[in-house]
């Protein structure tokens, strides 16, 4: 979770657990299970994948309950577009022919036994392209205090001015290695260095306290409408080519997210980090599904892939 808090919490736990104990208790929990849970992720011109389940009581061992006899009405730009039945036996339903374009506004209404039980809506964003990539290497003292060779990446984007935008930057390294049994492919998502103060808020309060990896999430709060060069400085050891590898590629992806997607993602990361630490209040995951939970969202991807030596 966090470097420092991880050092504090053992003291607390060490101090209190030596004599502490746990026991089961009877408690009257409110029973509000059975709400619809809808997930739908829509990229421009891509097939739509949907999951519809139902919530359960926290005391239930399983994580969800299936839904029966559900249909979904899709609205595109305010007009009913398609009505599809949902197969509750499958956790995910894929609709290859159902596609939306960038700029579309999509709403879905979920029916169970012909009764409307949930509504959600989203906007399918256009991707924001990475206009330019520049790199250079240097040897300097890194954030860990050690001298090391660093590879600096500059990614230039033209941030749209008219909207509040939410992004995720992701760099995936793919290494192909020839073995006797064939070619093995290994992909690693690189941890992004928080070297761009403007987008990663690295000068703000308590930023040094925690080391939760927010997986490249950022907003345009400081760069709205500007051309911005995202500066990333990697320790070169992250790119060290295994001696057996014969090729490597870097896949740089810039996701343009909806606000709902961004907030859900961030809360989910924090909830995962605090999972099991009962001295913290539970983290509520936001939803854009009215009368239910989940996330119905559009997002768009721009990507640049290049070989590295």
């Amino acid at each position: 979770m966090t470097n420092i808090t991880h050092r504090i919490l053992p003291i607390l736990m060490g101090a209190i657990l030596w004599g502490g104990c746990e026991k089961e208790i009877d408690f009257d929990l409110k029973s509000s299970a059975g709400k619809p849970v809808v997930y739908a992720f829509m990229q421009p011109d891509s097939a739509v994948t949907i999951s519809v389940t139902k919530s359960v009581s926290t005391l239930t061992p399983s994580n969800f309950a299936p839904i029966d006899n559900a249909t979904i009405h899709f609205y595109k730009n305010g007009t009913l577009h398609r009505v599809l039945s949902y197969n509750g036996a499958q956790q995910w339903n894929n609709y290859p022919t159902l596609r939306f374009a960038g700029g579309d506004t999509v709403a879905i209404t979920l029916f169970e036994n012909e009764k409307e039980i949930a509504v959600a809506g989203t906007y399918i964003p256009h991707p924001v392209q990475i206009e330019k990539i520049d790199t250079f290497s240097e040897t300097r003292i890194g954030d860990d205090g050690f001298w090391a060779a660093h590879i600096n990446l500059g990614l230039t984007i033209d941030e749209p001015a008219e909207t509040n935008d939410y992004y995720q930057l992701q760099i995936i390294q793919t290494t192909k290695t020839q073995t006797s049994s064939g070619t093995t492919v290994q992909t690693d998502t690189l941890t992004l260095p928080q070297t761009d103060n403007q987008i990663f808020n690295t000068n703000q309060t308590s930023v040094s306290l925690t080391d939760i990896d927010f997986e490249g999430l950022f907003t345009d709060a400081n760069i709205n409408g500007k051309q911005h060069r995202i500066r990333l400085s990697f320790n070169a050891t992250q790119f060290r080519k295994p001696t057996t590898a014969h090729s490597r590629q870097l896949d740089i992806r810039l996701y343009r997210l909806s606000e709902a997607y961004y907030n859900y993602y961030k809360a989910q990361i924090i909830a995962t980090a605090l999972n099991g630490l009962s001295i913290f209040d539970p983290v509520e995951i936001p939803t854009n599904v009215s009368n239910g939970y989940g996330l119905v969202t559009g997002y768009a991807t721009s990507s640049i892939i290049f070989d590295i030596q």
Partner: protein
Amino acid sequence: MTNLLKIIFLFFFLALAGHQAASQQLLDRIVEVSKTSGSAEQLLLHLEEQSEVVLSYSNQVCLPNRIIFNKQKGSIKFFLDQIFETCQVEYIERNNKIVIIPVKSGNREFHINGYIIDHDTGEPLIGANLFDFHANKGTSTNNFGYFSLPLNGGQITLGSSYIGYNTSLTQLNVKRDTLITIRLKPMPALQEISVLGKPIMSDIQRSGSGIIDIPVAQIKNIPSFMGEPDIIKAMQLFPGIQSGNEGFSGLYVRGGSSDQNLILLDDVPVYNMEHLLGLFTIFNPDVVNKVSLIKGGFPAQYGGRLSSVVDIRTYDGNQQQLNGSVGIGILSSKFSLNGPLWKGRTTFSISGRRTYYDLIQKAIPNDRLTSGSYFFYDLNAKLTHTLTRKDRLYVSIYNGSDDVSSKYNFKDITQSIINTDYDLTTSQLNDEVVTGWGNTVVSGRWNHIVNEKIFTNLTTSFSDYRFYNQQQQSNYQNNDWSTINLEYFSGIRDFTAKVDIDYYSSQGNTLKAGVGFTRHQFYPGINVVKTELSSNEKRDTTYGGQIIMGNELHAYLQDDITLTPTLKVNTGIHMSMFQTGKRTYHSIEPRLNARLLLTPTVSLKASYSAMTQYIHLLSSAMVSLPTDLWMPVTEQIEPMKAWQTSMSAEWQIRPEFNLTAEVYYKETNNLIDYKDNQNYFDTSSDWISKLTSGFGRSYGLELLLHRKMGDWSGWVGYTLSKSVNRFDDINQGNPFRANNDRRHDAALFLSYLLSPNADISMTWAIGSGKPVTLADEKYFAPSLPTASPNTSGYAEHYSERNSYTMPIYHRMDIGANFRKKIKLGERTISVGIMNVYGRQNAFFLFYADNINKNTGEVTRSLKQFSLFPIPLPYVRYTLKF
């Protein structure tokens, strides 16, 4: 800003300077006389010539034949006082003339001022009472043991009392303003408080309500965790005060949060009072002279926090002889030493406390290459110097810290000495991580008695709280060993200067006024990276949060007025101003306390207070963590404001035995909390945007039966209360219970003196469980398409914040002290058991999966974690010498 300053100056100069200083110009004029002996007429004539001031007197003034001045230079008043030492005269200034008129001693008013101190040690007795039975007038000493009481001249009888001391009667033939020192003798154990013919000034006669004075002797008798007496945990046993979690030292007063308490150590705010994450507090009772807690009816002199003031005053040191104590306990050992440095002028007091598991651990040989240790310590020191009868200087220092360290990476390394190829040296590496937190508090104070009516105190202080994490790491790289030091620190640092003035008017009013300025420096989290190569190359890098500044100015004026023999009012106004960034906030906070004596032993009290708070603590967990950050208001986040009103009835059953019933109502605006879905750990967005402000309401009934002295002493308290908050961005805008809203709360503390050498005591606390937020629903939560894999699982949903209540809390602790005179002094063996009957109180609740080993069936249940589920014994040995 300019207008506010004008108002401040207006208050001071109108209220004080205008009242007193202007009328004293002629009498205060300094003259030098050449003639130092003679008759009154001769000396008056000489004084007139030297001062060029006309001295007019009638033939009714007594004129002694033989007077000797004891010095040649002084004020006109000084020489006139010497001339008319045996007469009752009054001086009146008119133009450039001083008129001397005779007065009948019984009709003229004088101020009896001075100190009430411990007969044996000379320690000032704070809050001691003084009463003139004939005039039916009384007062109490201030925080330095000083008093001033206007009385008609002639024969008077002053009664002085203080809890734990024999009441004394002082006979005086008052002919002039008189500076006296009253020495009270400590009361032997088992002796009942003597009851004088008329009741002496006591709590019921004080105008303020919601004030708890806890005798330190009682605090030391309360059974305590690991045998460590704890002031704050003693306070938690009083009505209106919640502890937060069992065993922890949080203070939650009348629905407020822990950062709404102003903790003062010798007049200086302390920002973190916790050792071992709150299992102990930093205040060593061995050095504490006086502890007061104000939870309502705040006098105007206090400000800056919404819920309470904890005012802790330390000992000055024994004026007569060197004495001290040493104590050895399961957790820590401590010592204290105090005494005179320069008899009659300078005293010192020093004490220290330290845990020693780490020392024991180090002393035990082991071959482990890694090790961890923990300790905390406190160090208190105080120097008091009497410059003159009217001037005293105080310097107080507190330093304390918790320190957690772990060593690792132990290895021998061999390397060549720089610039040589063959000289090899072997050194040992043992990298370590040190995490700690602590306070440093320093204050310098100067008391000055300007005259019999005016007492001033100038304070300059420094308070620093810091959390730090240091990591030393060695690395072999490029044929060279390098050492990296990573440091992180956060905290708050205050520099304060303030002046407080007590004005004792002839009418019996006690007027207090003051002004102060604090420069706050907030350190929200700063990283420093230091790199040192064996080739002596060094580099420092600092990054992270920037230092945030805040300037706070306050001024106050309050008057304690006896309107009629039964009606007393303490009223005033506290004004403050806080400048942050480009914005300046200010507030004007009226305060009113009134007391009506229904009978000599029954009083009714009412109070109203408005409070403003400009700084707040960003907390992360249900327990206070040292990483929590103090932050100021900003241009977006406005100050928290509260107002509170209360009414109480007090019955003084015996002088040391009170019954109090109090009702209160409090509203708070601009309460600060994290929005739903926002979190302390979310560093991906601006901290200000994560916060929201809301409204809080708290009300309740508090009952307290308190016996401060006697063979049986202690208290029983009960609280019935409700605290609700509402924020637009939390809980869908619906009201929810405050974090420490517990409907019923009761506590009993009993101490019984078995003999002068032994006492036993017990505490029993019972109350409703605290509110808790529990997820009551869960649902499928897949890995997001752009997320790292393997995060698929479930998410939890809670229907409402703090909508559940933990099981009822109750616990009993018992303890005993056995004292014996030995050659070196007096030894005390303290023994006790915490949680006598092994009650398992819930510390937190959590869900857990249970797998039936036979069937493989998985069930899920709610469990509670208990912190101290079994009886915990303690023992402590203390030697006083």
